[in-house]
């Protein structure tokens, strides 16, 4: 194995890439976004998710209580206690496999990206990162001031120094693998609600 490592790295030293090979200085802010909140909402809706603006956590609690998925869910795992108490404690489970039947997970996102409707979720506070994908439905809660216009500004704000796993989540799990027909809910969440607080 160490031999292969040396051989591969040696082989790659020689190459035919000519001309300017310096690292480019660049910045490409998305200049087409005048209202990040509206853009975020319209993209999330176009990819099969739902997005609601609420004034505060109390209003968020009301929105979730009236949410059909919440009413139907048997196992609810909540990491945002101000919004819902939940009845399933994933932190108390030793193994992620025990979370396989969770119907709904409520968790905070750190950022929303207006250009593509992606929410950055740092999974490190979770004991089981698999929960994000096992859960039948997902509610992501972000602060209104945490919506950034584009991916460049998003990455500028994410701290990778101690991160172990982080995800951009944009919409529910989906596929178009059968005749290009969009089907929502393949392996991961069958629905996604993004609550924007404040």
């Amino acid at each position, binding site marked *: *194995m160490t031999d*292969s*490592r040396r*051989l*591969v*790295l040696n082989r*790659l030293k*020689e*190459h*035919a*890439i000519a*001309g*300017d*090979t*310096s*690292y*480019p200085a*660049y910045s*490409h802010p*998305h*200049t*087409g976004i005048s209202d990040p909140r509206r853009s975020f909402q319209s993209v999330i809706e*176009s*990819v099969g998710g739902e997005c609601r603006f609420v004034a505060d956590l109390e209003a968020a609690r009301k929105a979730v209580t009236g949410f059909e998925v919440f009413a139907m869910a048997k196992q609810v795992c909540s990491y945002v206690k101000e919004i819902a108490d939940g009845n399933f404690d994933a932190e108390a489970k030793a193994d*992620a496999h025990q979370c*396989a039947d969770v119907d709904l997970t409520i968790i905070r996102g750190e950022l929303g990206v207006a*250009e*593509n*409707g*992606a929410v950055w979720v740092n999974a490190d506070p979770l004991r089981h*990162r*698999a929960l*994000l*994908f096992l859960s039948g439905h997902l509610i992501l809660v972000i602060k209104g001031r945490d919506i950034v216009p*584009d*991916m460049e500004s*998003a990455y*500028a704000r*994410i701290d*990778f120094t101690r*991160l*172990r*796993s*982080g*995800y*951009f*989540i*944009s919409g529910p*799990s989906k*596929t178009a*693998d*059968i*005749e*290009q*027909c969009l*089907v929502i*809910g*393949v*392996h*991961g969440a069958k629905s996604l609600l993004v609550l924007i607080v404040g």
Partner: protein
Amino acid sequence: MKSHARLAAAFLKQEERAHWHDQALWYVREKRDRMAASVPDWEALRETAQAIKRHALANLPRYLEEFERNAAARGAIVHYALDAAEHNHIVLELLKGRNARLVAKSKSMLSEECGLNEFLERNGIEVVETDLAERIIQLAGERPSHIVLPSIHIRKEEVGDIFHEHLGTEKGESDPTRLTRAARTHLREKFLAAEAGISGVNFAVAETGAVVICTNEGNADLGNSLPDLYIAVMGVEKVIPKTKDLSVFLRLLSRSATGQPISAYTSHLLGPRPGQEMHIVIVDNGRSEILRREQFHKAAFCIRCGACLNTCPVYRRSCGHSYNFVIPGPIGTILAMHRDLKKYKDMPYASTLCGSCTAVCPVMIDIHRQIVLWRNEVVKAGYLGRAKLAALKTATLGMKRTRLFRMGGWTVRKLLRILPPFVLDNRLTIWGKFRDLPKMPAQSFRAQYRAYSRRKTDPLGLGANREGRP
């Protein structure tokens, strides 16, 4: 081995299916166009993407070492493989070491290239593809016909038949939602039972040691988070220098691939989850040779978005299975030629050289130009068929001599007006097999041009445009 032309002819016999295939891909291409147009800096992004690739690939040893160091600091174990065989061997040993019998696998073109699944199954390990399309293909016993949409050639009724046979869905079921639900239930069981997960990698960030994976279904994430053993496999070219570079590539990738603003899940993994073993296998398998070829090294810039397949008029009308290489279409062609010039000699000819592939490529690979250059290589190596070679030699002869060329043009213009159609439209004339002859003009191009130049006015308005007037 049958040539692309023969396989494509067989595919085109099913006219309705061929038309449907063409339309399905064109729909994806149109979505891509709308997405590209919605990003104001699109062309500048493509240029930056290419500049980053040029820089990263020119400094690969340095960036691979940086990536390896950072990934190792997070607890991942990095392996290097010279070729497909070593890659397969490393993966097998890792699986054996943990007594893994069932693997939940996510889409990876690298593993297709290495024939990993067949190898593992020969060694008694059950590999379950978890991407819906890949699972359909796997159950059907086929290979992907597209690098991003592997089952684009299969109709929903056929998926219904495959699922009826293997997953026990109702006979005749062809509703995509119900079929997808059945696959969800079936694959959920596999995810929960798998002892190991394997996935490809979209980007590996040197600066942090992060492995970045893009999926829409969430399958890669279940596969890399549930089992106690996770193996990520990647080609050496996947390394990019900085986290910031992801903002360039992620903005281009999904928009180019499927016309989505971003994939549903973009996962950044820095080391294993607690209690897990994470391995990263970095594979050369011919990539270093691509980078050493002056005219052809840009093929290694590819980020596997598939946009060049969706736009290619030949790919859309011939299906990925008509190409003998694991990666079909324009990018497949310029990758296949590095692998085996003789075996894939027909691939550069499965092109109209229209340049649409180059126009959509998010990292600006000059794909159609490379296809022409590969034709040169095929001719130089003597692999061109006798009939084609004879035709080309005749053409060269004529084109080198002005008088002969003029005389030839004159003869053809006159003759074609007199000769009955069957002279060209018969089985012996290969050229006329799928082509109609254009109407012959009364005058040669030279004569027309001379007449045009003599005129003071500009009947076609070309001059006005040239000077920028309305």
